[in-house]
């Protein structure tokens, strides 16, 4: 009796859930987003240049801008985002469990993460590598001088493993001091607990330029010890949503390649270039294939600008982080950023 009773309750629940959330064409996530009128975006609790909230609660940064573009493409409004600041431990669980729709939190793509966490990596928004920051006072010039030293690192990151590999490969016997929160790790470094702080080079630049009292007192060592392709991740089991996130990023890259900017996106709608026409949905309805309308990319660009603009605004040479474009340049300008054609 117990079993049948529960089964009836359960199956009716399942049925109700199925009715409510699996319509014919588009993915569950997109429908859920449309129903609640918000994209729930998991971001870093605070990393200048990537995702950081000001005192009014406005999020800025490269990762945040990607979310805004996604929100603009799906809901037509870049402000319809619920930001969920996550630390490194929480991020995957939050995405797995459906608490967030997309994880845009300077997250490294790796095989384990792609294959065993129930998540999909989309496409990199920033090519990075892990580096070290030390104080100028310490006179360390080379990461190999860190023999037997303490290095502050955030737990639950690829960084922690890379550090171990680097230490092992070079016989350095580095002592990691592992912190749960990035603020705690940088705080310990600034207080002098560790000789060095290690994370992705972009993160180092962010910490050095935004959080250090005097950036000149800290140097980022030149060598990078790993490859860290960072980008948004989505949950498995919803290919449509996976495609949307991926193609919004490609769209931002394509926009830069073809000169569509935040400022000129409206004029460009009358462009005769067929690629631009397809991108902005003036001829072919590219959005329809993704379950969106045809203006999707035009709105995304209008909200965040193209990839180049996002980069310049948040992390580029003129921003506080002063990072060179380097590997993050477009493929035809010597970088790695290569968008698949939108057609």
């Amino acid at each position, binding site marked *: 009796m*117990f079993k049948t*009773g*529960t089964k009836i*309750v*359960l199956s009716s629940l399942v049925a109700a859930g199925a009715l409510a959330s699996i319509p014919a064409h588009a993915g569950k996530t997109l429908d859920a987003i449309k129903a609640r009128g918000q994209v729930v975006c998991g971001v870093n609790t605070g990393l200048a240049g990537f995702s950081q909230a000001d005192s009014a609660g406005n999020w800025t940064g490269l990762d945040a801008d990607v979310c805004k573009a996604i929100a603009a493409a799906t809901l037509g409004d870049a402000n319809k985002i619920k930001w969920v600041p996550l630390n*490194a*431990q929480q991020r*995957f*669980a939050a995405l*797995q*469990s*459906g608490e967030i729709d997309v994880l845009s939190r300077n997250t490294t793509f790796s095989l*384990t*993460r792609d294959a*065993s*966490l*129930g*998540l999909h990596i989309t496409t990199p928004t920033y090519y990075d590598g892990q580096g070290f920051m030390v104080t100028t006072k*310490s006179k*360390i010039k080379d990461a190999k*001088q860190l023999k*037997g*030293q*303490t290095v*502050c690192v955030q*737990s*639950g*990151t690829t960084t*922690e*493993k890379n*550090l*171990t*590999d680097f*230490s*092992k490969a070079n016989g350095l016997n*580095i*002592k*990691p*001091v*592992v*912190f*749960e*929160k990035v603020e*705690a*790790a940088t705080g*310990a470094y600034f*207080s*002098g*607990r560790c*000789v060095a702080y290690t994370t992705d080079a972009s993160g180092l630049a962010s910490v050095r330029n935004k959080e250090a009292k005097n950036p000149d007192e800290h140097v980022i060592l030149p060598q990078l010890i790993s490859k860290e392709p960072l980008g948004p991740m989505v*949950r*498995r*089991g919803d290919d449509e949503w996976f495609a949307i996130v991926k193609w919004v990023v490609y769209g931002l890259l394509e926009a830069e390649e073809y000169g569509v900017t935040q400022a000129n996106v409206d004029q460009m709608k009358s462009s005769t270039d067929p690629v631009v026409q397809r991108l902005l949905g003036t001829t072919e309805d590219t959005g329809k294939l993704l379950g969106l309308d045809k203006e999707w990319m035009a709105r995304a660009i209008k909200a965040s600008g193209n990839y180049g603009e996002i980069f310049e605004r948040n992390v580029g040479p003129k921003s506080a982080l002063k990072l060179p474009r380097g590997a993050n340049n477009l493929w035809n300008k010597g970088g790695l950023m290569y968008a698949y054609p939108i057609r």
Partner: protein
Amino acid sequence: MSVAPRTPPAKRDWSWRSQAFRGLLYQIIAVVIIGGVAWWLATNTAENMRVRGIKSGFDFLTQPAGFDIGESLSKFDSNDPYWKAFLIGVSNTLRVAILGIILTTILGTLIGVGRFSRNGLVRGLCQAYVELFRNVPVLLQLLMWYLLFTEFLPDVTEAKRIGDIYLSKGGITFPKPIWETGHLFGVAGLLAGCVVAWFYRRWARSKFEATGQVRSMFWVPVAIVFALGVLGWLVGGAPSQFAVPAKGEFAVEGGGALTPEFMAVLLGLTLYTAAFVAEVVRSGISSVARGQSEAAQALGLSKGQEMQQVLLPQALRVIIPPMTNQFLNLTKNSSLAVAIGYPDVVSISNTALNQTGRAVECIALIMLVYLTTSLLTSFFMNWYNAKSAIKER
């Protein structure tokens, strides 16, 4: 005419309204609801994991961990498997917990007894200590100690030297005896001392019960253990080699070291819990009726005998259960070490959780570790509680 003997009405041994039936019904309802909820949650989880292709299972425990652990009692290499990393975490937790329990007992007892001091200043200080430390969250205290250690101590390169001890942001570095086989004799001596002391106590007690002669039950055993330990060490050739730390280019090298993370956790937990232990001790002592101490004095017992034979045994009955609770709290609070970077079992599990993505498994392991410790203590406490409870019909 005879009246037929009235038979009592047939006893109905079962009814829909009987207490037994209602009891059964309530239980069935409870089982159905709780079982149903549990089943529902379990199927949801299984379904979610299946749909998203989340790998599950404890097989990851035999995979190489691939990360280093900043401090560990035994050697840990990044190629060692996860289960070993977990064990290191457990040992780090136990290290803090056991040291903390010892220190907090000493400090808490001193402060608790201090509240009965004849000296007003001491009484006042002890009370102020208790009020201050138990009214501030322990997490905040840990964070503050860590801040003090890392912000206000000198840099590693300018470590402060006191004799052969160095003090810096890297922690305390001190001379450490180098382990030799000679020390083994010392340890053997200590163990032998424990055995001898135990027999001595048994003998002294039986003598006391037979003749009423009082022998020291504390200092003599301590002396025996200590003396045999020293004897063993001497037999072993009195090894006294020390690894003395020295200032290197970037750090103090050699010797033993305590990291600021460890010290902050230990200090924070000890000072916080000591405030509670002090209260436990105070209420224990004040729970013993005044007449007891007066009667002991009337019998001509000395102050020490009065404490040892009369007051303490009665106070202990009140003290031990809440004291055990405090020890448990200390052990559980050591999980807050994760906030300041001490690699305890929670911190290691969190790292493992992130490297492998086995959230359910890792959290289950954390809970298992603490649950085992707690349940063992809890069983002991329930047994003790039943033993010491006032007997009723």
